[in-house]
């Protein structure tokens, strides 16, 4: 057998339930021993990938329990193994997989919690970018402010859920809020980003969510603020901008070169 064929057969044995007898015939050692030896590799492969999911989705794991997470995780691993040797980027498909996984349909917020955890994972590894500071924004001539487009830091992720995903997530942290205080009828939008090298998250008001979504789409400041105020009567641009500037949510893009925020 050519090596490429043998390699394919080994690959299939790593993710399949039982190895092909034709493959076992190509291994050395006593017959009963071969299957056991192959199983060591199979176990290593499946658990290495499961460990990646466990590290990225700790709250989802708490919500469904370790045994259930192991079962659903190993199912995902077998059906959607990574296609690149870069494991920090493996698991992005897991929230969607959970959403479609019928046996867990009685936890309708589970997939959104997993989306939140994946957003945290992406924020952890996102590129660096120079921050938009209050000083730099203050230096923009007033007449240029309405047309200014503001950028989000590359680590920023915005999530909108019909469930209180921030509260549920927080109740599963070591020093988090009480779980019985979580109101499941309360929809939540959440901002996730990296602040001083650590991933953080905060709930957003409706207006703040609309503002940041407009920034993400590179809408000019005046238009973004107008949309936010139209959606949320309590929205105040000055308050929101001060919050996001001070919390390092906003950035200078390369594309700011040549406009009012240029270097």
């Amino acid at each position, binding site marked *: 057998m050519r090596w*490429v064929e*043998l*390699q394919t057969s080994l*690959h299939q044995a790593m993710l399949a339930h039982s190895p092909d007898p034709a493959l076992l015939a190509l291994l050395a050692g006593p017959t009963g021993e071969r299957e056991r030896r192959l199983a060591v590799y199979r176990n290593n492969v499946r658990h290495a990938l499961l460990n990646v999911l466990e590290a990225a989705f700790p709250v989802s794991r708490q919500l469904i329990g370790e045994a259930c997470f192991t079962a659903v995780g190993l199912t995902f691993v077998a059906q959607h193994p990574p296609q*690149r*040797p870069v494991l920090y980027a493996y698991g992005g498909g897991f929230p969607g997989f959970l959403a479609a996984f019928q046996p867990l349909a009685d936890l309708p917020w589970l997939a959104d919690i997993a989306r939140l955890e994946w957003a945290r994972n992406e924020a952890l590894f996102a590129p660096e970018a120079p921050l938009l500071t209050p000083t730099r924004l203050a230096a923009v001539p007033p007449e240029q402010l309405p047309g200014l487009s503001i950028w989000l830091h590359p680590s920023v992720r915005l999530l909108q859920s019909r469930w209180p995903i921030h509260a549920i997530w927080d109740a599963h942290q070591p020093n988090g809020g009480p779980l019985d205080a979580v109101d499941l009828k309360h929809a939540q939008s959440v901002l996730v980003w990296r602040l001083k090298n650590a991933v953080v998250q905060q709930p957003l008001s409706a207006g703040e969510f609309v503002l940041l979504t407009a920034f993400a789409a590179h809408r000019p400041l005046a238009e973004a603020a107008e949309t936010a105020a139209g959606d949320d009567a309590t929205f105040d641009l000055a308050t929101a901008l001060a919050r996001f500037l001070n919390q390092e949510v906003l950035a200078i893009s390369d594309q700011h070169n040549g406009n009012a925020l240029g270097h």
Partner: protein
Amino acid sequence: MTPTRNRAALPNQAGIGLRHPHLPEFLAASQPVAWLEIHSENYLAPGGPRVAALERLRGDYPLSCHGVGLSLGSAEGLDRAHLARLRALYDRFEPELVSEHLAWSTAPDGTFLADLLPLPYTHETLQVVANNLDLAQEALGRRLLLENPATYLRFSEADWDEADFLAELVHRTGCGLLLDVNNLYVSARNHGTDPVAPLARLPLKAVGEIHIAGHARVVITGSELLIDDHGSAVAEPVWDLLAAALSRTGPKPVLVEWDTDIPTLPVLIAEAERANVYLREINHAMG
């Protein structure tokens, strides 16, 4: 000719694998460790605290980069995009040494299996690995050290003994050898062979680094198997094998690997200190 641009050599002392739980202690204070090794694939992200930490530590410690995902045994050749990612990492951090494994982890359809899987040692696979090594050393602009694997199974078809296979690869490609003493021990025990015997056949002149680590012992249906899990202290027979290896290679950089059930940093440093005792003995013996 193999490109060589590694700027300096690692010291012939013990180093440790840099693991995420120990980053805060390294960032807070200088640690009594002669050099560090990282798993290259853990530092490929474009940003974030881990890469930032390595950026800070790089100036204070010599560095060895240990790749765990290139899949040199792959029949279909190497992933060019992954080579480019590694090249960018190595150009940024300029490690003193770069190493990979005699194993495969990427299947012919591109699936990454996140483990170091075995290959038969045949004339065909020798050519495959030699071609992949040539391509990798060219694309990375560096000489690679190739690590002997820990294996749990062997294939019925074999043209080469593992030690001879490695010697031939060193001869053909100019790569070096990363001698993993724990792997040597684990494989020998799992296949019922003598762990010391390969030392007579391996290309020891090409050794640029030595690994030691802990292994697990499992007994299933009455027969014992050693698993290379890097999850405990180095076993006594592996220390003995280290001494036997050092007596033949002379002093080399020795790395303590500990990847699962990661201990506190002082425990890891104590393990490195014990390796330094072996290195001092060899220095004395060789005068």
